[in-house]
C-alpha cells in the first residue's frame, strides 16, 4: 500500500524525518483508526473482550524486533525524552553516593538536561566524553571513568552528524565493570537492525514517531534489570489495587495510568511495516539517496556540509552568508522544502562543528523519493548562489 500523502497543494518535500517521519504508512493510520473504533482493551481494567490488546501485542512485537525479552521488559512512555528521564532519575535515586555519570558531546538535551540538572542539584558528578571523527570511542569513555562511575548514557546515532556509534564494545566493557549503560536509540531504531541479544545494555531507549513510523506521543525502553531503577511514578495499574504502594511487577513497575492506546497501536503497526518492508531494503534506499543528496551539494559554491559520509539519512550543512534559520525559512516558504534548523537540541555537537551557531539539517525516510531529493538539492544550490551574490539594499 502506498503511504497516505498530502492532499493539499503545493507538494511538500519533507526532509525533517529525523525529528518526526512523515508521511506515515497507510497501515499505521489504519491501525490507529481501528484502535479508536473499538472499545479499549485495558488489561485488568475492563471486563470487555473482543478488542485487540495492543499493549501486549506491541510488547511481543518489540521483543521480536529487538531480539531481547521478555516482552514485559518493554515499557511505554511518551517518547525517548520521557524514557530517558524516567531511567536517569530512577537510577540516580537508586544509586549509591557518590554517583558519577558519563555522557557524550554527541548527546541530545533529552540526556544532557536531566544529567546537568542532577549535577546542579548535587546528586551526581558528570563527565562529558568528546567525539573524534563523529564517533565516541571506547577509549574516550574509559578516560572518563572513575571509581564512582555508575552510569553511562550515550546516543546510538547522532541526530546532527548521522554517525552510528559502535556501542557493542562499550556495552561489553561497562557490563564487565558493573556500570549501567543507557543507550539512546531514538535515531537508530527502525533505521538499522538492533540486536539487543548481542549487546549487553542496561537499557535501550526508542521512540515511536521517527523511523518506527508511529505517531507522536509514544516511545519507550527495554530494560534488562528492572530492579536497578527506582520507581519514581506511582498510580493506578489495574492490578493489586488493594495495595496502597506501587507494584514492582513488570511492566506495571514503570507504567501507571491509562496508556496511549492509539500511540501503541501505531508503534505496533509501524514496526510491522518496517519488518515487512525489510530493514536491509530501508537501509539501502536511505543510504543511496543520502549519498546522492550529498553528491548534489558537495563542493557547490556557498554550501558547507558537516557530515559527508553519514551512516544514517541525515545531512547537516550551512549556506555561507545566510543564517540557518533564514535559509530554512526560505527553503520552506519559497521552495516547499521542509528541513530543521538551529541546534537540533544537541548544543555540544554544534559547538564543535559550527561554533554553536547551528545549521540546516535535511533528513530522509523510506518515503523520500529521488525526485524530491533532486528538487531539494537544486533549491538549496539556488539559495546558496543567491545568498552569495545577490544581497542588496532596497
Amino acid at each position, binding site marked *: 500500500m502506498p503511504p497516505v500523502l498530502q492532499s493539499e497543494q503545493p507538494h511538500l518535500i519533507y526532509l525533517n524525518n529525523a525529528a518526526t517521519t512523515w508521511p506515515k504508512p497507510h497501515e499505521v493510520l489504519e491501525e490507529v483508526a481501528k484502535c479508536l473504533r473499538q472499545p479499549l482493551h485495558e488489561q485488568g481494567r475492563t471486563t470487555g473482550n473482543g478488542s485487540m490488546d495492543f499493549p501486549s501485542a506491541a510488547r511481543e512485537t518489540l521483543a521480536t524486533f529487538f531480539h531481547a525479552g521478555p516482552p514485559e521488559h518493554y515499557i511505554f512512555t511518551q517518547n525517548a525524552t520521557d524514557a530517558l528521564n524516567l531511567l536517569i532519575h530512577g537510577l540516580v535515586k537508586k544509586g549509591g553516593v557518590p554517583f558519577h555519570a558519563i555522557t557524550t558531546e554527541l548527546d541530545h538535551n533529552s540526556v544532557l538536561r536531566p544529567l546537568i540538572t542532577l549535577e546542579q542539584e548535587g546528586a551526581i558528578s558528570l563527565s562529558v566524553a568528546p567525539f573524534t571523527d563523529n564517533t565516541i570511542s571506547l577509549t574516550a569513555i574509559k578516560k572518563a571513568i572513575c571509581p564512582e562511575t555508575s552510569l553511562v548514557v550515550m546516543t546510538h546515532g547522532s541526530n546532527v552528524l548521522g554517525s552510528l556509534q559502535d556501542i557493542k564494545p562499550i556495552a561489553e566493557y561497562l557490563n564487565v565493570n558493573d556500570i549501567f549503560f543507557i543507550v539512546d536509540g531514538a535515531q537508530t531504531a527502525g533505521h538499522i537492525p538492533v540486536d539487543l541479544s548481542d549487546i549487553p545494555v542496561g537499557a535501550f531507549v526508542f521512540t515511536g514517531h521517527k523511523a518506527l513510523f508511529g505517531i507522536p506521543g509514544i516511545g519507550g525502553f527495554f530494560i534488562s534489570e528492572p530492579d536497578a531503577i527506582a520507581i519514581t511514578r506511582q498510580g493506578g495499574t489495574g492490578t493489586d489495587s488493594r495495595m496502597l504502594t506501587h507494584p514492582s511487577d513488570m511492566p506495571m513497575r514503570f507504567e501507571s495510568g491509562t496508556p496511549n492506546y492509539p500511540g501503541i497501536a501505531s508503534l505496533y503497526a509501524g514496526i510491522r511495516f518496517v519488518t515487512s518492508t525489510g530493514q536491509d531494503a530501508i537501509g539501502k534506499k536511505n543510504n543511496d539517496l543520502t549519498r546522492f543528496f550529498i553528491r548534489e551539494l558537495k563542493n557547490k559554491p556557498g554550501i558547507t556540509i558537516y557530515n559527508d559520509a553519514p551512516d544514517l539519512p541525515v545531512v547537516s550543512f550551512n549556506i555561507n552568508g*545566510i543564517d540557518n534559520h*533564514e535559509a530554512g*525559512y*526560505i527553503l520552506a*516558504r*519559497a*521552495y516547499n522544502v521542509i528541513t530543521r534548523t538551529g541546534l537540533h537540541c544537541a548544543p555540544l555537537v554544534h559547538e564543535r562543528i559550527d561554533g554553536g551557531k547551528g545549521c540546516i539539517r535535511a533528513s530522509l525516510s523510506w518515503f523520500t523519493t529521488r525526485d524530491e531529493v533532486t528538487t531539494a538539492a537544486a*533549491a538549496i544550490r*539556488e*539559495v546558496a*548562489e*543567491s*545568498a552569495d*551574490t*545577490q*544581497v*542588496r*539594499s*532596497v
Partner: protein
Amino acid sequence: MKEYILDKPLTEDFLKFLEQFGTVRFLDQLKKPYFSYEKEHFISIKGFVGDSNVEVRYKKESHDLVGDYFHLLLYYYDQGERGISALKGQEDSIRKKMKIRVDPMPENGI
C-alpha cells in the same frame, strides 16, 4: 514569534520604509524575493515581497514593550513621510522605558 497575514501583499516600498528604522536584507534573485528586517532590542521580521504572510519575532527581554511595534510599523507606513518622524518619536519613548529597566537609577537621569 507570531505569524501575521496582512490585508495586502508586502512591497519593496514597505522595505524602504523599514530601512528608516533598522537593517533590511533583501535577496531578490530567489524564486520569491526574500527579505529580513532586524531592529536591535525590538523585533525581527522575515517574509517575501509579494506575500501577505510575515513572521515576526519579538526580543524576549522587552517583549511587553515591543509587542505592538509591528502594528506601529504598518500604521505609520500608511501615513507616508509624516509617519517616519512620528514612529521615531514612538521609538524614543519605548527606548526610554527599556533604559529605565536596564538602569533604573541612572546617575544623570534620563
